[in-house]
């Protein structure tokens, strides 16, 4: 019997499950702790989901529904309200309305996604009033037509921050501004202009939130201009902390799965194998955060290696890949064999804007690849070629990626 258990029923988990069934795996179970499977897109009202994987443009909820339908049609067992609450590295302890059970599997795929760092994790001082959200929470409140606020400040200026802007505007909330510590926003070139012109939302660059004030409800936010040291106050009743993603890696840690210090997700090779034989990781638990369709393609890609593991039971040795500052992470972050990664590229992130950086990849003093990228934007992945992984000495030391 080959049972594959996939933890997390978002785009990555469902796409992986569907592909596994297509490849003939007899029992594929997706455990999702939410009331409905589908993952984060369920709450994203805007269009544009599904371009890379389904070749069509859908709203987030329609995209999520489509994947659940495809999973049902493929014979995947999707179990909502089933949360994995314990994992020793062997059997999964599953908690659901039916009670508690131990579930064993021939292969496990972690697809638990990622979340935004909330205010406390960013150590923003001040009082603790209501009205402080992440985009994830904001979008759920908006979708369920629950109260949000009247005047909102958005913290961050990456893709998801503009998504938060749209959600706020559509919910009738006045957006008083966006702030980012960087010199410019991190989204597509037109996003800043569109925000300024269409929604009259000023973007304050080189600015950070110094404190939040308010009793009961947010009343005022202290902003600090990083270059001048000047402080100013903004009156608002809502603050939305956007982006700054962190993989939901707690289950991986509980199961003893090695993490990459850069991504803080499980360390994976190009086939999405973790360090633990039989355990794979796909989607945004690996690195926060890629768009939903990229996560889905990663899930689908992972299925091939899962099927191979079920047939052959091989688990290749691997060499670690790590990044030097200002680079923050590369994904995949281990090299095990010469198979290509998903979308035939490696993803690279940096903590700062880099214009025409020269990237060098070295192992034991030997340059495996070097080249110049057009630019790297913090919070967005730059693509690197993968073919150099074929030149890696599998018995050699760790590989280092640096920018100059």
């Amino acid at each position, binding site marked *: 019997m080959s049972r594959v258990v996939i933890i997390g029923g978002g785009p990555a988990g469902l796409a992986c499950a569907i592909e596994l069934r297509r490849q003939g795996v007899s029992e594929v179970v997706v455990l999702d702790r939410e009331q409905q499977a589908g993952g984060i897109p369920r709450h994203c009202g805007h269009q544009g989901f599904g371009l890379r994987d389904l070749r069509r443009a859908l709203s987030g909820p329609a995209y999520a529904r489509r994947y659940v339908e495809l999973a049902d049609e493929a014979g995947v067992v999707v179990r909502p309200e089933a949360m994995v609450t314990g994992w020793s590295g062997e059997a999964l302890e599953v*908690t*659901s309305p039916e009670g508690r059970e131990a579930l064993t599997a021939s292969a496990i795929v972690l697809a638990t996604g990622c*979340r*935004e760092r909330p205010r*406390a*994790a960013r150590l923003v*001082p001040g*009082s603790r009033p209501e009205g402080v959200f992440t985009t994830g*929470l904001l979008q759920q409140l908006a979708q369920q037509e629950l109260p949000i606020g009247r005047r909102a400040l958005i913290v961050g200026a990456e893709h998801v921050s503009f998504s938060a802007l749209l959600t706020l505007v559509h919910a009738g909330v006045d957006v008083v501004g966006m702030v980012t510590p960087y010199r410019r926003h991190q989204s597509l070139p037109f996003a800043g202009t569109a925000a300024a012109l269409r929604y009259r939302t000023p973007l304050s660059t080189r600015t950070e939130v110094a404190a939040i004030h308010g009793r009961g409800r947010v009343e005022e936010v202290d902003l600090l201009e990083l270059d001048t040291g000047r402080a100013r106050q903004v009156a608002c009743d809502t603050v939305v902390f956007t982006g700054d993603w962190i993989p939901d890696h*707690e289950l991986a840690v509980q199961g003893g799965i090695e993490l990459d210090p850069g991504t803080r997700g499980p360390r994976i090779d190009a086939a999405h194998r973790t360090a633990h034989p039989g355990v794979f990781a796909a989607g945004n638990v690996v690195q926060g955060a890629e768009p939903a369709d990229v996560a889905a393609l990663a899930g689908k890609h992972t299925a091939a290696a899962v099927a191979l593991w079920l047939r052959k039971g091989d688990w290749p040795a691997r060499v670690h890949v790590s990044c030097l500052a200002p680079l923050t992470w590369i994904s995949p972050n281990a090299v095990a064999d010469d198979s290509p990664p998903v979308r035939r590229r490696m993803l690279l992130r940096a903590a700062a804007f880099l214009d025409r950086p020269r990237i060098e990849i070295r192992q034991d003093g030997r340059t495996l690849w070097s080249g110049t990228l057009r630019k790297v934007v913090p919070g967005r992945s730059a693509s690197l070629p993968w073919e150099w992984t074929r030149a890696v000495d599998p018995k050699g030391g760790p590989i280092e990626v640096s920018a100059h």
Partner: protein
Amino acid sequence: MGTSKANTALLHTGFDAKPGTLEARLVRRGYELLSAYAPQAGIPIAAIGALLVAWDDEQLAAFPRIVAGARANGYDTIRELDVDELYRREPQLGPGARGALEVPDEGIVCPFTTPLAYATEAVLNGCELHRDTRVTGVERRGDGGFDVQTTGETFATRYLVNAAGLRSDELNRLVGHDDFTVTPRRGELIVFDKLSRPLLRHIVLAVPTGTTKGVLVSPTVFGNLILGPTAEDIERKDDTSSTAAGLAYLRREGERILPELLRHEVTAVYVGLRAATEHTDYQITIHAPEGYACVGGIRSTGLTASLGIAEHVRTELEAAGLELRPKPEPVSVSMPNIGELSPRPYEQGGRVVCFCERVTLAEIEAVLRSPIPPVDLDGLRRRTRVLMGRCQGFYCGAHVARLLQERPR
């Protein structure tokens, strides 16, 4: 719950209290009473032990004085550990520790369930609890006793107990006494992710200085580690704001005490205000002829001392003429367990609403129907732990808001 909800949540033996004070006596008595009451009332509690660590010669030299003080307080179980033994016990401790005192009976207790259990038991046994009701004036009645004017109704009473915490001095003045002033002392604390919990087994205390007991690192009953508190006298009694300077200071201290801790995510920051006064002891005075008991100036040890304080005040009021008859069939309480020290409801299965803290729908529904139901998200948080975890509502915030909005009233 008052300021207790933001307590460091330690169960104090009182080993370091000033010998001979009322505080020393009531903390010791409170420890005994709460240790017995907590398990039956469903209050998470555990005597996990504390290590008071010296980081330099001066701190090491303070040990004999601390041991002598503990003995004077009737606490003999304190003992010195050498450096090797200390690092065997706590291998993750930062380098440079010189030695430690072990206080095996120090513990941790739930700062939410404790006051809530008292309130619930009081209400179930006939006490009227008026929330959102501020005292605006106190007038003495001609026949003895008081008229207590509030933002709600006026209450006529023969006996009056002032347990107004940070505002105990203001109420004391309304009654006509002026023997102490509360200066709130701010304490900022950082709560670290549950993944940090295996780093530490004991409470790690600092050697106290004149003004503060220093920064400690402690496990919580919820399975986190906390780092704090700061100690800063401030003006306003409602200023529970954290500060950039305070958080930076705590992080420096944390880096020194338990370096690995700083590599973990922060789950929450909270701020407590201690009801400090110009006096070194609790300000508990029974004005027998008036029928007025002032129970003020209770600092962070008050959570531990609470039942000792209550017993003391009751005894004194009885001596002052208050007649009490034991209830023939008192109702006892059994609070829902929100700690990690004993089994949680989700372990039997259920609809898990809050994933980070593993709170089930049944728990939330039960709390919404409880004798003292929450009126807002904060109240629901402290009764169930919803929204208190690492995601701070990213996943379940809207679901929880909807459950509160649709609650039966």
